[in-house]
């Protein structure tokens, strides 16, 4: 065997410490460590770190959890999220931010209706996506009722796209104020707890293709279709937003033109 076959990478050293190596590489790494004291010292140091971490925090797993974390209790009582204070401060920030936006618009070019839709939708996303207990007014298991109610209030048929293929279930929806009047807001969630929202309302703007905007760590795709403005918002970082937006866009695009519309 040549030396090349024996070169052990840093990834392999890590995998060795974590017991993630196949058996044949394991013995290769052991042989390597016997002749490379620097690497052997690193591995020993990594193991010591792990021991220190386990010594410091391991005992918590054998400690009885406090009563407030009992499942029975959490199910029985309707707990508000503990971190609602965080949500409240976020709301305050958003209101401040919205005022800033309005002031800005007076002194510069007036933003299009669609831009205002995108802005309002992202504010709503930031406000409600962090809500644990009360993210929606009507839950997703009442989909027909939800869609009927929101269509009536918005004054035009709205729809909640099926996003099961994207791993998303409808959490539910709520009615929100919008740039032109009442707007519908649907929230979806995947098993990882990531949330995506669709915000829509009536607009006089012309039809557009998908457009994209970001604010902080969130992104939004927005477009106009048959006098309705749509904004699909979600987290940017996991790269699923575009796929979700495209799916929603395609479904809404395929809807037949309403009679006389």
């Amino acid at each position, binding site marked *: 065997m040549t030396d090349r076959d024996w070169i052990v990478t840093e990834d392999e050293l*890590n995998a060795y410490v974590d017991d993630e190596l196949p058996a044949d590489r394991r013995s290769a790494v052991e042989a390597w460590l016997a002749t490379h004291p620097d690497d052997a010292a690193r591995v020993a140091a990594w193991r010591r770190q792990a021991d220190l971490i386990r010594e410091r925090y391991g005992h918590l797993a054998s400690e009885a959890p406090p009563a407030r974390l009992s499942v029975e209790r959490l199910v029985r009582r309707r707990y508000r999220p503990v971190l609602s204070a965080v949500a409240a401060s976020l709301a305050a920030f958003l209101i401040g931010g919205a005022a800033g936006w309005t002031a800005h618009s007076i002194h510069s070019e007036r933003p299009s209706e669609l831009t205002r839709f995108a802005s309002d939708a992202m504010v709503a996303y930031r406000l409600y996506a962090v809500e644990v207990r009360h993210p929606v007014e009507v839950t997703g298991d009442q989909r027909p009722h939800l869609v009927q109610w929101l269509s009536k209030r918005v004054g035009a048929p709205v729809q909640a796209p099926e996003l099961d293929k994207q791993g998303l279930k409808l959490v539910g929806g709520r009615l929100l104020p919008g740039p032109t009047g009442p707007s519908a807001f649907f929230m979806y*969630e995947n098993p990882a707890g990531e949330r995506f929202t669709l915000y829509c309302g009536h607009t006089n703007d012309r039809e557009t293709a998908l457009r994209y905007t970001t604010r902080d760590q969130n992104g939004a795709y927005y477009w106009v279709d048959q006098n309705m403005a749509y904004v699909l918002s979600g987290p940017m970082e996991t790269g699923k937003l575009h796929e979700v937006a495209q799916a929603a866009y395609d479904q809404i695009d395929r809807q037949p033109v309403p009679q006389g519309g």
Partner: protein
Amino acid sequence: MSEFRERIEAAIPALRRYARALTRDAETADDIVQDTLVRALRSEHLFHGGDMRAWLYTILTNLNRNRLRTLARRPVLAPIKDSDATTSGPDSGGRDIVRALEMLTEEQRSALLLVVLESLTYREVSEVQGVPIGTVMSRLARARNELKAYLEGERPLLRRVK
């Protein structure tokens, strides 16, 4: 109690351990665990019968990320409340593991803790963090090298901004 709820209940001690090490604050840790439980219990219909443990760690990790994001937006930084930190100063050789963990980025800390404290496999961590296994491994390697340098005194102590 349903099997679903029993499995959640059984995971609570480990979730507390992870949350505590992740946030370094007992109160915040239990707050996040509670929100994780509320969200999991409410999302029974979203759970497809896969790996319950990885699912709960995913929710907890995401909630913590949201929390940090909100904190980061606040104009005034609150002082770091670290109920686990020893009172011994850096001069008394108090380069302890808690302070060392503070040196890491959120992703590095989460990856390392999930592997060494929670015994998740690389594959499970990649699911929890929503990144490829290669990314998990580079986070682990960086975390370990940071900790080593810090614990051996090669790096200056973090200067906390008041």
